[in-house]
């Protein structure tokens, strides 16, 4: 069973979000004119984009352009000032209580750049924790699934290691397995390879590539331009809190239309 299909499989109940979006014309993630600020500092100044089910979207841009904040708005970690965010039948901007946000986060999972895992639990326990305590699933079933997920990301041998004993790339792969254990509809990746050594970046990217190939909806904030070009359906370039340019990777990377995009790309590539 592939990663994504196993992840999405259990949501095929009548009335569930999965059902409603068999019609892939309706995007699974839709942002419209999102504004966000920290106190007086405006971070997002009107961001709009959408992602269809199974789509892979990469967000690139200079530091401070609001990319990470954008991802955190999508899964409700950060509240927005104005605009709408719809994710898998949830109006994220209207969620107030903890229970509502938890319900959202069962559909959207996020992997962070560092300090991702719980250092006082082994890799296996990390993967098992949320399904047991949040989804209230049976411990033995969860353990089986967790071992399977860790095997899929290539870390079956390290299931009893603690995060402090794993390399950066291994930690991130465990983090991906942990997110998949929640069977999300959408996965968010916040610069997951930025803090890694070059050797370990590859193993993480391979894992993400396989996820995308199996049909998981992914939104990645990344600096890995080659990777973005390879797996993205659409790339958004953000700068100063807005999306400056969007388009298929071949077009954006090879024939950027805006000067700012060109300037940024010439610095990176």
């Amino acid at each position, binding site marked *: 069973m592939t990663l994504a299909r196993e992840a999405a499989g259990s949501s095929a109940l009548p009335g569930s979000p999965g059902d409603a979006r068999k019609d892939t014309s309706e995007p699974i993630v839709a942002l419209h004119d999102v504004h966000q600020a920290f106190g007086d500092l405006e971070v997002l100044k009107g961001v709009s984009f959408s992602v269809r089910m199974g789509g892979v979207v990469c967000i690139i841009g200079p530091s401070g352009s609001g990319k990470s904040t954008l991802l955190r708005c999508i899964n409700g970690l950060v509240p927005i000032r104005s605009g709408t965010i719809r994710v898998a039948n949830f109006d994220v901007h209207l969620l107030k209580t903890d229970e509502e946000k938890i319900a959202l986060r069962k559909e959207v999972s996020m992997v962070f750049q*560092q*300090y991702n*895992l719980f*250092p006082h639990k082994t890799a296996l326990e990390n993967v098992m924790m949320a399904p047991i305590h949040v989804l209230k699933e049976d411990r033995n079933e969860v353990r089986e699934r967790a071992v399977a997920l860790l095997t899929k990301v290539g870390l079956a041998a390290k299931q009893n290691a603690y*995060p*402090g*004993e*794993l*390399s*950066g*790339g291994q*930690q*991130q792969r465990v983090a991906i397995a942990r997110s998949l254990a929640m069977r999300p509809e959408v996965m968010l990746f916040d610069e997951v390879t930025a*803090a*890694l*050594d070059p050797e*370990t970046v590859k193993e993480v990217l391979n894992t993400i590539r396989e996820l995308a190939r199996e049909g998981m909806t992914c939104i990645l904030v990344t600096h890995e331009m080659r990777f973005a070009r390879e797996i993205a359906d659409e790339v958004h370039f953000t700068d100063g809190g807005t999306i400056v340019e969007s388009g298929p990777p071949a077009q954006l990377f090879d024939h950027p239309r805006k000067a700012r995009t060109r300037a940024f790309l010439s610095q990176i590539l």
Partner: protein
Amino acid sequence: MSGKPRASTLPVILPAGERLARAALRERRAGTHSLRLRGSHGWALLGAFVLGCGIAQAQSQPEAPSIFDTLWKWTPLLARGFVFNLAISFIAMAIGTAVGLFLGFAQISLLPPVRKGAWFATHFFRNAPWLVLLFYCMFLLPFQVTVFGVRIPIPDWTKATLGLALPVMANVSEIARGAIQSIPTTQWEAAGSLAFNRRQTLWMIIFPQCIKRMLPPWMNLYAILTMATVLASIVGVNEMMTLTQRALSAENRPGLLLAFYSYVLLWFFVYCYPIARWTVRLEARYAVNQ
């Protein structure tokens, strides 16, 4: 936390956590917590003093002398007491440091009996409460010694000083050992390859480097020791605390407590504050040079 080598290329806890762990280890080795005195403490203490004076003044009879006159009256006596405290702290620190350094080096001796004996002595005196050691010296040291037919009296304050020198010795021993063991082994290897013997290595290469590392915890220990000299009041030495209590009971006026105690604390603060600031400066300078 053990020194097991890390496989992780990604840290798992914030540097703040590492700093806390390192600070805990430092304090454990030094045997005392780190005194972090700031200017604002002095002002707060002054404020408490003023408040105390105000309370005392408000509660006193109109015909009684003002609180400032009272304090001024007792100040010479308190000053003598304070100088006494300082003298005790100097001597105890001097003796404790000298013996402690010796013990510290003994703890890294190559001879097992010396090493084990030093370890035991260090930890025996570290585990004992300061007051118990004080009592020990007060009661068990003779009140006079006869050396070469000359009778030398050992007054109470000397016994108290020796009693305070014991924990200082134990803590300095640990500080020294920690400092020596923090010198990287490459230093020893380099010295060895230059044909230095162990004694030369220790004296000319290791120890000079240790001094810098030992200075901040040693100075912190001194500040703590200075404040701990008030313990001598419990065993009957006429230092500042005893005199303050005598003054308070002599005055027999209610509400003088805050004024007098904050007065005493102000004196200690004025003395310990420069030491604490200097310690911080030294710590920072040492960290940079690392």
